[in-house]
């Protein structure tokens, strides 16, 4: 074993608890890997001294004979949409900086006065927070190209996107800089980058994880979730961060499952549905073959297969981009130059001129586009035609899932119609970018949990190296244990044992 960063989360924790490894040496290895992979743009802020201080504290407590938490010494990257009281938080936006023209190190990024609940829970579990991960501005994007600072790059091919919006969180784990990370998923922002970078990513049930301290994008959709290199690592992270929170009234009062133990369950007798509409026109044939073959493997392990109909799948993109933008236009009104970040004086000395100047300078193109679309969908005369209509269609999409889960325990589908595309390729066409979210949006609209487990890679060709392919598993509300059981079974049976980008192992 060349580096502690090659261990799984449970293996590493066992060694730190047992004293074979110190949290400090693990943290040093992580910080060194972050430095060595800086060109991938995974981090907006690196914890450095604070991370080492936390690690030494963990080692001292161990030396005193204290019991360590379930994430003892595990280096974790945090999506920059989550508030951290000891590290700046930008959400990938210039509007949370004092100086929007400066490089991020000198931009005066907003410093939150408190930790998000999930951050507090990670710290209590003795995780080491090594840095804040790059992201699309306010989580709006599918490629990480909408970061106001710099794009993150796919470690399998740095000319390609890592996916988004939690792109930095996926790159940090795929490149081995961190053993786990947190992202947020509003329409696929954990599952899709996990799929494109070849790591495990979990979008829990809506309400499973507290959002206190998450910078809100679309409040009826946002959910925080973990990424890790393997299924058990993600399961342990979710067990730590999940559960009711007095500071978030939308957080479900449902007991947290035994996700890590569920990984040992196997899939014998599980009813696995294959949603017909997720395999229609537009899906890359190589991805379709790989996905179907993985489904056959799961059948061989004891799953009962059946095809299911989800007739409203094709309306997911339209529904999502009306609902999410409407909610965003309201949530982002808090960025107004008064309480945090940027302030620009307007041409006139009145408050609206100040708002306009501040927001005009502080928000990037995609954020403006979505605020505009959402404002329009909510505006007088259009509310019923757009916003209310979309919320009704959302009900039909949720019913598709409810009906499917009367017949099956879980669904298996692709994550995205194609593997990672090149940076810049789709920037000129926002609608084309939105349409690629077709396989992840419906589950978000229905609030059901979903997960990406790496499936394998595409065949390398002269103009394209091997790229990760993800398998998306979906289950009914609060059935995360079923997802972990199936994902772990697949992981154990996966023909490609080691799934690491070329230069990191």
């Amino acid at each position, binding site marked *: 074993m060349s580096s502690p960063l090659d261990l799984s989360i449970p293996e590493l924790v066992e060694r730190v608890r047992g004293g074979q490894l110190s949290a400090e040496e693990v943290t040093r290895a992580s910080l060194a890997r972050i430095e060595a992979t800086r060109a991938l743009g995974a981090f907006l802020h690196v914890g450095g001294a604070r991370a080492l201080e936390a690690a030494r504290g963990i080692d001292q407590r161990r030396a005193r004979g204290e019991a360590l938490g379930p994430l003892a010494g595990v280096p974790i990257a945090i999506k920059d949409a989550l508030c951290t009281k000891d590290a700046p938080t930008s959400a990938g936006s210039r509007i949370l900086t004092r100086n929007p023209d400066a490089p991020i190190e000198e931009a005066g990024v*907003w*410093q*939150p*006065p*408190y930790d998000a609940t999930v951050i507090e829970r990670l710290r209590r579990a003795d995780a080491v927070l090594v840095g804040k991960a790059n992201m699309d501005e306010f989580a709006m994007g599918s490629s990480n190209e909408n970061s106001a600072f710099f794009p993150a790059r796919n470690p399998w091919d740095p000319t390609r996107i890592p996916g988004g919006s939690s792109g930095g969180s996926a790159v940090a784990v795929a490149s081995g800089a961190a053993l786990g990370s947190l992202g947020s998923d509003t329409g696929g922002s954990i599952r899709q980058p996990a799929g494109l970078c070849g790591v495990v990513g979990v979008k829990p049930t*809506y*309400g499973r994880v507290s959002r206190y301290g998450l910078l809100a994008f679309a409040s*009826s959709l946002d959910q925080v979730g973990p990424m890790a290199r393997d299924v058990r690592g993600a399961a342990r992270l979710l067990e730590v961060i999940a559960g*009711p929170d*007095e500071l978030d*009234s*939308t957080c*479900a*009062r449902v007991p947290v499952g035994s996700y890590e133990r569920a990984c040992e369950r196997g899939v014998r007798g599980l009813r696995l549905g294959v949603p017909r509409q997720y395999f229609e026109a537009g899906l890359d044939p190589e991805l379709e073959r790989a996905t179907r073959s993985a489904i056959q493997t799961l059948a061989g392990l004891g799953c009962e297969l059946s095809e299911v109909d989800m007739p409203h799948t*094709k*309306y997911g993109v*339209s529904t999502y*981009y009306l609902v999410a933008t409407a909610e965003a236009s309201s949530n982002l*009104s808090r960025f*107004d130059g*008064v*309480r*945090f*970040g940027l302030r620009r*004086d*307007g041409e006139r*000395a*009145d*408050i*609206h*001129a*100040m708002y*306009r100047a501040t*927001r*005009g300078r502080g*928000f990037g*193109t995609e954020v*403006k*586009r979505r*605020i*505009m*679309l959402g*404002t*329009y969908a909510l*505006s007088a005369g259009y509310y019923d035609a757009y916003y*209310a*209509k*979309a*919320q*009704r*269609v*959302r*009900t*039909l999409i*949720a019913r598709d899932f409810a009906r499917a889960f009367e017949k099956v325990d879980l669904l298996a589908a692709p994550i995205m119609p194609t593997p990672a595309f090149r940076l810049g390729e789709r920037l000129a066409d*926002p*609608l084309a970018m939105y349409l690629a979210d077709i396989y992840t949006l419906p589950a978000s*609209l229905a*609030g059901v949990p979903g997960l990406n487990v790496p499936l394998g890679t595409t065949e390398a060709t002269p103009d394209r190296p091997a790229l990760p392919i993800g398998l998306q598993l979906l289950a009914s*509300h609060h059935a995360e244990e079923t997802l972990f059981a199936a994902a772990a079974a697949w992981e154990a049976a996966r023909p490609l044992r080691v799934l690491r980008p070329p230069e990191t192992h």
Partner: protein
Amino acid sequence: MALSQKDVLHIAELADLALSPDEIERLTRDLAAVLQHVAQLEELDTSGVELTMHIGSSQMPLRADQLRPGLSQDAALAGAPRVGPGAFAVPKFVDEG
């Protein structure tokens, strides 16, 4: 759905966003393309279908009504771009004349 630059300017006003002429042109084009796509929802009959505004429990949990420490005034003001004594400083927005 035809969308004019005038419509875009009106929405920008509602959204409190200053836009450059380039942005106005680009957004007019982009929003028109998206609105044209979302018009597909019209083909669905949704009469009698309820809105899904929220997923999950309908009952709002209540916590005990007890005093607990909140954010201090200093902490709340620490991130603000401009502050006065114990307050956020903003341009005048009430005409007292």
